[in-house]
């Protein structure tokens, strides 16, 4: 753990020139389980970062936490170092569902963990939940949503399950040991999510994200608005501005696996897994990412970002999509309709032809 924090700080040091001109607005500690990091190491990490990076403008500082591992001392240290938002992988409030997902925590532990977060003085809490799970019914999901709401989080991320290749779950699904709910049932769960959460004051601002007013995750919105980010650590992804108009920006991914990552940090190479993104691709990504949000993509943002209008790029396809009820205009913006949100990939494939 200690070595990993050291390496993270070394990496930051090396890549500092890439981002030093930019102020840091959000920090996100996630991927893996930061709550497993000993309090002292967490403090050392954040202090190390803040000594070299300008954190004065940071508005949101999120740390991911696992309900089963979250300790009071850790929360205290996090709070003291500037963490002001906790994102907790609750996943479900049904013991059977949690077991199936291979989670070690219980619904009771999640409630206790939330309690500790509040006691530590952290005002902004998000819970991750999953629906469309094998064996899950609409009623089970409603129950999970209600239990989550009763814990008064400011933010909820509700993800429809996507079985990942190579996971035991995927293996069981392929072998029909487990079966996913029917597509119609899964969408019923999604519909319920939107309806129920709206009625309790959570508005949907992205396909899977819901928040009380003003509590949207600024950091994640940054991904969808193509705001540059620097990722530190194993497999961390970065997106940094291009030097001129082409490429529009450069994405990179750090080596996966601790050993490869260590070797990379200790070597003299600075970048790894570099993928320049052309202007055209960046324009498409504006739609691909922006349309995830209920607010959609605004004409003026598109123009200022790319120097051309949205309608000059894909006006006729947009019009067709509007006619088919998949997209709509709201003021200066284009966004997906409810139906369009269900079929975002199909919409994007059609828009892709324009870029």
């Amino acid at each position: 753990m200690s070595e990993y924090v050291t390496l993270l700080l070394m990496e930051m040091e090396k890549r500092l020139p890439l981002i030093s001109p930019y102020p840091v607005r959000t920090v996100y500690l996630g991927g893996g389980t930061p709550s497993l990091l000993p309090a002292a190491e967490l403090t050392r990490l954040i202090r190390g970062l803040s000594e070299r990076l300008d954190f004065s403008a940071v508005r949101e500082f999120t740390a991911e936490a696992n309900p089963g591992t979250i300790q009071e001392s850790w929360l205290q240290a996090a709070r003291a170092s500037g963490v002001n938002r906790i994102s907790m992988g609750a996943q479900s409030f049904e013991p059977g569902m949690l077991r199936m997902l291979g989670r070690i925590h219980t619904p009771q532990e999640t409630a206790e963990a939330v309690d500790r977060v509040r006691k530590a003085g952290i005002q902004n809490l998000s819970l991750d939940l999953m629906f469309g799970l094998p064996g899950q019914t609409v009623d089970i999901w409603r129950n999970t949503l209600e239990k989550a709401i009763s814990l008064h989080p400011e933010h909820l991320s509700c993800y429809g399950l996507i079985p990942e290749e190579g996971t035991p779950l995927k293996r069981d699904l392929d072998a029909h040991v487990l079966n996913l709910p029917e597509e119609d049932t899964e969408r019923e769960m999604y519909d319920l999510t939107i309806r129920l959460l709206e009625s309790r004051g959570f508005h949907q601002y992205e396909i899977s994200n819901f928040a009380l007013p003003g509590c949207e995750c600024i950091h994640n919105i940054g991904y969808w608005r193509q705001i540059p980010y620097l990722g530190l650590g194993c497999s961390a992804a970065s997106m940094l501005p291009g030097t001129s108009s082409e490429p529009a920006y450069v994405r990179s991914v750090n080596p996966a696996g601790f050993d490869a990552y260590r070797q990379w940090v200790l070597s003299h190479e600075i970048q790894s897994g570099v993928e320049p993104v052309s202007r055209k691709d960046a324009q498409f990504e504006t739609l691909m990412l922006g349309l995830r949000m209920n607010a959609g993509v605004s004409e003026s943002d598109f123009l200022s970002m790319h120097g051309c209008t949205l309608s000059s790029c894909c006006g006729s396809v947009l019009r067709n999509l509007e006619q088919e009820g998949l997209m709509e205009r709201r003021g200066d913006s284009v966004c997906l309709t409810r139906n369009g949100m269900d079929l975002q990939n199909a919409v994007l494939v059609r828009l892709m032809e324009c870029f």
Partner: protein
Amino acid sequence: MPGKIEKIRNFCIIAHIDHGKSTLADRLLEATGVFAKREMVEQILDSMELERERGITIKSKAVRMMYTAQDGETYELNLIDTPGHVDFTYEVSRALAACEGAILVVDATQGIEAQTLANCYMALDHNLEIIPVINKIDLPSAQPEQVRSEIEDVIGIDASDAPCVSAKTGQNIQDVLEAVVRHVPCPSGDATQPLKALIFDAFYDNYRGAICIIRVKEGSIRAGMRMRMMATGGEFDVVEVGTFNPGYSPCDQLGPGDVGYVAASIKDVRDTRVGDTITDSMNPASEPLPGYKQVTPMVFCGIYPADGADYPALKEALEKLRMNDASLTFEPETSVALGYGFRCGFLGLLHMDVITARLEREFDLNLVTTIPGVIYHITRTDGAKLEIDNPTKLPPVTEIARMEEPYVRAEIFSPQEYIGTLMELCQERRGIYLDMQYEGSRVKINYDMPLNEIIYDFFDQIKSRSRGYASFDYELKDYRESDLVKLDILLNGDLCDAFSQIVFRDRAYGRGRTICEKLKDVIPRQQFEIPIQAAIGGKIIARETVKAMRKDVLAKCYGGDITRKKKLLEKQKEGKKRMRQFGTVQVPSDAFLAVLKMDET
């Protein structure tokens, strides 16, 4: 200079697929020095890749070999290759008409097969001297003596002198050449008579135009002569005559008995009809040679480029293929569903398969092929007669007084044990039983069958029901009145013309249901619910529904997911490219194949 007529031997080789015809031909060419062994490309006569792969010979050719026999005389042996498939029966008959003898190759391990027999009878009909040759004696399972007596029993020819050879190793090949010299009669013909030369093959040469391959029966042909095609009336100036050995070998003239080529700056291979008689325009023969038949396509289908932009490339490819294949016809057609394409006519299903495979392979085209059909004869209520090769051209039911469909005479040879199941198959396909003959351990059954019923998967069915042992031959017999209807498929309420077909009324329900079910499986869920309906006239007879796609979205997409998400979309876009837009519905190109490959039983 071609030798004296007494020294000429014109012969062909007949054999069942795999019995070693091509290999034997190679050995003969090698033994007579036409090719040095090291120069031999395997199986010279089957020059097209596809033919070799399928073990069939599509186009015939003629090669001249000079052979000094044991009697010390040098003979001119013309080996005429014949196509080996049911679709090309007429071409085979013309090639046989150019010969006086035929080598019958029989596999020493398998004995006589149905196809061998059919060709052998055809050769006997042309009064050819049959020279049996027992091949593959190098194989451990060879039973040459048993096969020898089988030849005598089944065909009724003397096989006591039949050479036993191995075309593979070259063993006893000389015996075959000696047998040809000794037993094949020399041709006859009068050089002083007006010219009569039989065209038995033609091909397109990029530099010389269409080349006719001929057998001179009477008179002679030489460069500078004005020649006339007696059936088509076309006249051309002969530029060059010669023989193949195996390349062009020009000579002054071709006289009676000679086999060779004529180049006459003929621009279109369709001006050279197989079976036509060439005569001297200045001194024409009074009668053409017998047996000419205009070859007409029997099976039709629409061929469309999977990508509309490939239309010009498809056109060019078809034109190139037609240069060498006068029996291929095509004309532009448009389909509401498939856009611009061609209605193509073929001699039969195999011919269709070969052409589509060549288009895809040699011209790198991605095709959508519609359901094959035949020509229907329609009598309208006003008495007008129509010939319909495309279901979409069928007049409304109320205007049709009478419909007729083509029937073929189908002949199936099979070992006895499979006859039951094969007869069942013929009955299922509306076959009318004619008769049955026992030939040794094999049985021949004859049926009259609607052509429409054999163009689906009849070949495959025969093969699978007889474990590959039975073979099948057919020829067009006549047109018969039939209760036919047009079966339409509607996708989301829109008629999808590419799936329309004319079917026997009693079949329509079953087929309509099957097509709907198949399409339901191959059409992916889309933004909206898609009804798939089968209809006759305005009446819906079957319906299936593809439910609307409810979900096509990635739940999570943060910084680390973007590259992967884009790859996923690219993949989805590629998949979409393989789809055809039918009105509002996307249909994968494979859907046509699925409908075609349906099994109603």
